[in-house]
């Protein structure tokens, strides 16, 4: 195993984690067995479902953004492709699961196609190119009316089953976080981090950075496409503005940053925190919450770039500033400023 620089979790921490998972898994059962209590309701399950989806999405984003260092401002485009893929296929009378898978595969293929040109771009240019991709896709969807229903939107066969969606998204979240944990401990994870830390050096040491970057990008895209499909089915209705809503793509960046870029627990912590803030703190402020989130993003970037896990001492992650300040990330093929030329 590669050994990330933190001490392995203590036994008590592991027990706590397992207990938490068991409790979460049991909630729907609690609801059936004790129908009169008011804490676990369908609405609560729905709420948690959204949270699990956020955790999954943020973890996926973290693979490209946190581990590999390519900060994707348009990652939600894969969510949208997954959602629309699912919607389109279900409207062709496909059952849900194949539709969702097809949508995710579409997202992965799209990632593969755009990965080649965009992953060659550095830092801010990659970020903005992906943002543009997100905006462009919204318009493409709007324009492809016969396929996507255009601006009017698409309706999926309705299916109401809160507990089922709860379990599926819960399972997905656990699976994805598990995958990220596994990746972090594998050579693939160490390679991605090497690429983040020093892409040129990695290339010089024999790592095929292109293949590795694209693999991470495609995997993240695929997993995000799955969430898109699930969301679409649960929402029953999708339209370009609802699916490709700008804050969807921004919030991923923010949650990952808040939690701690490049750590495994970071996305979980970040997504959960934001989620509870929305549910509890900002529920009263209703329309102001997006404004508040914009301000929060500014504060995080300026004052806590290493995120919560970073502050808690997780040494395996990184902070926003490190990702882009590191002079070694500069391409070796560019002109080096005069005062740094060394021949």
């Amino acid at each position, binding site marked *: 195993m*590669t050994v990330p620089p933190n001490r392995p979790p203590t036994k008590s921490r592991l027990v706590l984690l397992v207990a938490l998972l068991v409790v979460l898994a049991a909630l729907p059962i609690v609801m059936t067995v004790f129908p009169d209590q008011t804490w676990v309701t369908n609405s609560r399950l729905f709420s948690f479902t959204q949270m699990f989806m956020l955790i999954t999405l943020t973890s996926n984003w973290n693979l490209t953004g946190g581990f590999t260092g390519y900060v994707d401002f348009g990652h939600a485009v894969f969510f949208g492709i997954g959602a629309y893929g699912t919607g389109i296929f279900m409207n062709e009378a496909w059952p849900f699961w194949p539709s969702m898978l097809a949508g995710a595969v579409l997202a992965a293929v799209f990632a593969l196609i755009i990965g080649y040109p965009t992953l060659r771009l550095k830092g801010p240019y990659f970020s903005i190119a992906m943002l543009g991709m997100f905006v462009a896709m919204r318009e493409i969807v709007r324009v492809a009316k016969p396929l996507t229903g255009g601006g009017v939107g698409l309706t999926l066969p309705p299916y109401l089953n809160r507990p089922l969606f709860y379990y599926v998204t819960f399972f997905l979240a656990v699976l994805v976080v598990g995958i990220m944990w596994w990746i972090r401990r594998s050579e693939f994870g160490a390679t991605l981090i*090497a690429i983040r830390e*020093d892409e040129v050096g990695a290339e010089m040491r*024999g790592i095929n950075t292109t293949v590795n970057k694209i693999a991470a990008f495609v995997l993240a895209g695929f997993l995000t496409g799955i969430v898109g499909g699930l969301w679409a089915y649960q929402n029953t209705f999708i339209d370009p503005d609802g699916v490709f809503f700008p804050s969807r793509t921004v919030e991923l960046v923010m949650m990952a940053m808040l939690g701690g870029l490049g750590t495994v627990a970071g996305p979980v912590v970040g997504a959960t925190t934001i989620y509870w803030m929305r549910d509890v703190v900002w529920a009263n402020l209703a329309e102001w919450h997006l404004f508040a989130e914009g301000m929060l993003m500014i504060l995080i970037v300026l004052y806590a770039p290493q995120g919560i896990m970073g502050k808690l001492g997780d040494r395996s992650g990184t902070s926003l500033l490190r990702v882009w300040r590191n002079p070694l990330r500069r391409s070796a093929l560019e002109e080096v400023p005069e005062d740094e030329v060394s021949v």
Partner: protein
Amino acid sequence: MSAVTPLLEGRGVTKRFGGLEAVKAVDFKVMPNEIVGLIGPNGSGKTTLFDCLSRVQAIDEGSVHFQGIDITRLKPHQVAHMGMSRTFQVIRVYRKLTLLENMQVSRQWRGENLWSQMRPSHKDVEERSRDLINFLRLEHLTNEPAGTLSGGQRRLLELGMALMPDPELILLDEAASGINPTLVEEIKDRIKTLNQEQGKAFLVVEHDMHFISDLCNRVYVLNYGEKLAEGTPAEVMENEAVIEAYFGS
């Protein structure tokens, strides 16, 4: 004596940056098992030459052959796969990865596919990593992030990373700069061992003349991108043109 193919041979290597010729028609060679030095005043083109050899800079004119194969147009990772490693003037280690991870990630990647990378790790890679870390006497830091190491320790780590793919030739760019004399002796000692016991060749850029004369069989001197002189360390140090280049007339 039969003619032996040079391990590394450059013919007429030229590199321009706009109007400046940083490397001008340089011929050189490194034979198997040799330790060759490359010296010259600041700005003479040494690191640029290294960048050309490891292929992060395009070579404008001339050619470079490694083990008889023309590498002039290859990509950096392809050259690495062929058996040539290097270290860097500005230390490049992966600061957020542990020493062990730094080593594991620097292994020989040729012929691997992505799938095999997803496995936890290869036992033999881990063993080799640990062996090399021990060889470099850094075992106590195995699980520390590389960013916490001192400069000298990082230079040793870089050497280790360059050794992981079991290369034939190692380009060392100022491996002794900025570290204390004891560690410099360490590094020299490790290089000698690798050369004598494992037959590895080295091309060494260095400013420290003791380092050069102690280690190298032959030395090339560059000045303003051109080859000024070549010979044994002793010959080169007595060469008038070389003295003038360093100290003025």
